[in-house]
């Protein structure tokens, strides 16, 4: 990162920290969701963008993480600040299980992607019948007033939590990219056989990527439960969720640090703009928003296969 880049980054950070002082609750909720997608996209990016393992089942970690912390709070009153560690632990175990199964039996490419979907679908149907956490009727958390220990508070609290997470994820990704794991992952992504021939333990490093990504996504899940106070298997584990997660990094630019952030900002703006436009035109029928997502994804995949960040970076004279 050159000096110009650092300056721009500092400016962005200052603006984001100061935002709640100016913004109303609506804008703050849009910004919170935007940061949510930036953070979760960053998590997915580690697995796909860095290590080249395409997961279309990240809703699995979102759901399992959310259910773990949600159920601990619901049944035993465990604070989400503690529950999140259990969620991370469970998702690490789950990611390690999935990754080890897949990579041990040499499953890669399309087959790996389908395995991730199968696990998420399996979990969706499983949780539908898991009555301890409400089954298909859903899990509802008590809405208590203003207690930050239970992650209850004004919109600014959620905003700052998500801002902190997004900043941490950005820092972690930047750090990993400059260290051994980052180089190993990129080598595996570009050519797994060559990486293996160079002596990289590809099994181990692919597993590390899956586990890191799973742990980070678990935190997103916990946030989502305590933000919305409810959890339904049909929603949290749905393939639409998994697709929603991957939009930001793909549109922004896979494998880049700023891609997920730019992508998240763009889809939040577009989604918001689209909602308003649809209201104005009176086309308020289900499916409009998703079809706009679909068209954007289509346009990006066809015309900007590397996402929009690389071209912005070139214009601004930043490296990547």
């Amino acid at each position, binding site marked *: 990162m050159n000096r110009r880049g650092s300056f721009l980054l500092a400016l962005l950070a200052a603006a984001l920290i100061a935002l709640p002082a100016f913004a109303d609750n609506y804008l703050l909720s849009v910004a919170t969701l935007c940061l949510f997608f930036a953070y979760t996209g960053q998590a997915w990016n580690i697995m*796909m963008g860095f290590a080249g393992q*395409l997961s*279309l089942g990240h809703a699995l970690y979102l759901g399992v993480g959310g259910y773990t912390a949600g159920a601990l709070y619901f049944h035993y009153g465990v604070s989400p600040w503690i529950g999140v560690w259990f969620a991370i632990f469970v998702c690490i175990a789950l990611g390690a299980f999935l990754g080890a*199964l*897949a990579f041990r*039996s*040499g*499953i890669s*490419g*399309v*087959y790996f*992607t*389908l*395995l991730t*979907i*199968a*696990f998420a*679908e*399996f979990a969706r*149907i*499983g949780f*539908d*019948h898991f009555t301890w956490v409400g089954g298909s009727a859903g899990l509802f958390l008590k809405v208590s007033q203003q207690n930050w220990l239970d992650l209850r508070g004004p919109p600014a609290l959620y905003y700052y939590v998500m801002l902190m997470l997004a900043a941490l994820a950005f820092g972690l990704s930047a750090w990993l990219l400059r260290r051994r794991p980052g180089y190993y992952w990129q080598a595996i992504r570009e050519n797994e056989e060559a990486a293996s021939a160079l002596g990289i333990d590809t099994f181990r490093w692919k597993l590390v990527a899956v586990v890191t990504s799973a742990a980070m996504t678990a935190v997103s899940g916990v946030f989502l439960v305590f933000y919305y106070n409810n959890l339904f298997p049909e929603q949290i584990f749905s*393939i639409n969720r998994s*697709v929603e997660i991957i939009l930001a990094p*793909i549109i922004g630019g896979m494998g880049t640090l700023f891609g997920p952030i730019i992508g998240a900002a763009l889809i939040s703006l577009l989604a918001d703009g689209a909602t308003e436009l649809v209201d104005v035109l009176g086309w308020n*029928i*289900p*499916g*409009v928003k*998703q*079809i706009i*997502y*679909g*068209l954007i*994804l*289509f346009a990006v*995949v*066809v015309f900007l*296969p590397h996402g929009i960040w690389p071209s912005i970076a070139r214009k601004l004279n930043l490296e990547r």
Partner: protein
Amino acid sequence: MPIDFVSLTNVIISGILTGLVYGLMALGLSVIFGIARVVNFAHGEMMTLAMYASVIAFSTFGLNPFIAVLPVAALFFVLGYAMQRWIVNPFVTRPEHSQFMLLLSIAIILMNGQLMLFGPDAQSVRLDSLLESIELGPLLIDRGKLYAALVAVGTTAALFGFFRFTRGGTAIRACADNWLGAKVVGLDVNQLYALAFGLGTLCVAVAGCMMILLIDLTPAIGPGYTLLAFVIVIVGGLGSMNGALLGGVLIGLSEALAGLLILPSAKSMFSFALLIVVLLLRPRGLLGGNR
């Protein structure tokens, strides 16, 4: 719950008949993957589109699905051909995930387009002539399922015949075996890929016209059937035509039995468990070749 022999046999027959239609749907996916090398992530959405087409044919023109299947299949063949030619083909040389996302975006557009056009309410086609079951002693066979399975088997047989005995079919198989070799001997590879894609969408269109007799249609069922088709071809072996049929029958059976023995709503959990087991034990599927 004690299960008597007769109801068990009925469930098995119904599972096999449904499985044959599943098999045809999955055959489409298998042809598209095995020959055009495209992972068709919009397969289920294409099937629901064909189902809507046959609903419209029935409600507007009074055509029953057994007749509507002909124009719908022809239309889908052209659509599939055009789609491969102008949208998917430029992606053949791009990385795998790029093509994957292209089809995913097409799936999203198709599904939500259907949601916008046709609304979320369930639709179906019920023919009075199919209401009465065929009685074979104590066994009851659903007429709709039986005829749907016969059409599926007929289409499959025609496709097998095409690949086995015609010049076009042989050329397509050559192309699937060795892309470069096919090019060297002067085959128009792009043309053949588009032809294969068209045949794949034709299969899914016929399967869709038959499925409308068996299940209720909403736009939301698309992704589920995409996954089901993948489960079937992976269980049978991606790229293997016999495997797709075998996989279809196996999944149809396992769904029917799971519905009877465990919980109807857990039936697809059974299929996903089967997928995970097959992927782990025999990643190339039951009838897939060794790598």
